[in-house]
């Protein structure tokens, strides 16, 4: 299969600048999940779109060099395990799965709301990586024309 070269220099240049802004915005949405609209899922989707932006602009080969896909797989699984782990600590500390066991802090401060920001970060990592990996896996998938039936 012919390797993809990506898009034109204009797109590449714009992407090179804008992708970091997209990442920062995604991280902002994740970290302020307990204060403003959005949260782990929404921010995660934005981060995944940042990755996809690079993927579309620069092509598959560049992504292979730029990202360690194996590490992303591990990050995805680890964040899910940590999420369940926080839930289990909740059982151990207060008796309910995912129950809050940290100080709730002051309302509207960044470091507040107990375990919710932690869970948002883990969901953000999971969603951000997983959505990108779904598209990545689909791009690796070759359709075998004329299969068995």
């Amino acid at each position, binding site marked *: 299969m012919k390797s993809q070269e990506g898009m034109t220099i204009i797109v590449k240049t714009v992407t090179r600048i804008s992708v970091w802004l997209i990442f920062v915005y995604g991280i902002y949405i994740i970290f302020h999940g307990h204060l403003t609209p959005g949260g782990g899922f929404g921010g995660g989707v934005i981060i995944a779109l940042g990755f996809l932006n690079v993927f579309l602009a620069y092509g598959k080969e560049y992504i292979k060099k730029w990202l360690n896909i194996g590490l992303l*797989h*591990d990050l*995805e*699984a*680890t964040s*899910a*395990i940590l999420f*369940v782990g926080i*839930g*289990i600590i*909740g*059982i151990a500390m*207060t*008796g*309910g*799965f*995912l*129950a*809050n066991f940290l100080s709730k802090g002051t309302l509207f401060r960044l470091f507040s709301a107990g375990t919710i920001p932690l869970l948002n970060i883990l969901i953000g990592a999971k969603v951000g990586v997983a959505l990108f990996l779904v598209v990545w896996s689909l791009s690796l998938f070759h359709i*075998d024309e004329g*299969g*068995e*039936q």
Partner: protein
Amino acid sequence: MILPYFIIIPLLAAFLITLFSREKDYWSITVSTIASATMLVLSIVCFITLKGETFIYNLSGWKIPFTICLVRDSLSCFMIVIIQLISFTSLLFSVNYIRHISSSWKYYSLFMFLVAGMNGVVSTGDIFNLFVFMEIALFAAYALVSYGGKAFEFEAAFKYAVIGSISSTLILVGIGITYSATSSLTLAHIAQVLPQKPDILVWVGVLFLVGFGIKAAIMPFHAWLPDAHSSAPAPISSMLSGVLIKALGIYVLIRLFFNVFGAPPVFMNIFMVLGAASIIIASFLAIGQWDMKRLLAYSSISQIGFILLALGISTKLAILGAVFHIFNHAIFKSLLFYNAGSIEMAIGTRDLREMGNLKSVLPVTYSTSLIGTLSVSGLPPFNGFFSKLIIIVACVQAGYITYATIAIIGSLLTLAYFLKVQRYAFHGDKLFDVSEKSIGGGMKFAMLFLALLCVVTGVLLIPALRQSMLDPIVDTIFNKTEYIKLVLGSL
């Protein structure tokens, strides 16, 4: 509290498999087997220690209107035992079976998600949570159906995904209407409010009946099942036929139509008609099949018809028959799918016309499939006989002679198409140069274990055992909206 662990353990196992597995499948087999065995033991403890009571588990420590609750009553514990039993034997069966497709960890990870989803569906007391867990189980099931990677498997999985999505959409619309009418997603709260609004109850009931009817593969909604169940790898076929259509279909129908809606007569009549149609039409379709797994898949639709018919009659005896048939069908249908899988692994075909005289080369498969056949056809002293007998007696007692006749004819047709399997697969004069050594120990153990259960589980009807095991489940269903008091009262 034991119930959340039935969701936590398989999820954790699935993610641990994803994280640590590399080329070989040893780690994934170890983790999933340990998880499954632990859950099997826990589920039996959970069922035995319940003693007919109802416990509520509030997630994240909030109180009921604001939280998702898990409900541990006889019915949910009963379903959890069935799920763990079949998933454990399927996992043992998978170890050898899946290696002839691939040695990837992905299978075991998906398998754990499937179990987590089903456990979640049967243990939750919140309708939207139920929807989420249902989708987890279904997405795992779509992927597992296409696991073999051949064109017809993708086609079956795609068909399953399309029809599954349509039904999920209907269910989601139903949940939306319910929420707008009752302002609550907790099943017990919905059960308090909804019966006072009969117009909405009819709308929601129809949406849920069609939505979950598709999951349960009741007759007019069955189109996805024969393809999906025959294309999936054998242990997954047994999971789908044995437990998935019951956990996602029949269990939810029971929970919603009995415990939440209070068994409205109009729906009970529909249950009976659809059940009777499923029994007869699926039996005739099964007789014409030459693909062994496809025949078994049609047989599943027919047996689900028996369960639905009994639920529709909704006398205490009929519900006992339905509950017992849910259990029995899970066991013998899984066993028969294992048999089909081991034949496919030994001689590489599912076509009955290409088989023959396998009884001499595959003795374990032959003997266990004979037990499975006699059970599913309802011959004494196997477990299927008792549940079918109860259902037929309940039909007669309630005055539904036509339905009793249909059930008897369905039972005879079942015997007919399974005799066809026995005749073409195991008897005849063909010679195959294979031996049962090609089938692994785990596969043989899974088949023998379920065959043993087919023989012995008839004892559950001995009065002392019935009173402690089956009667609490029947009471949970029969007492209908007692569920509201039990759930909201045990806060």
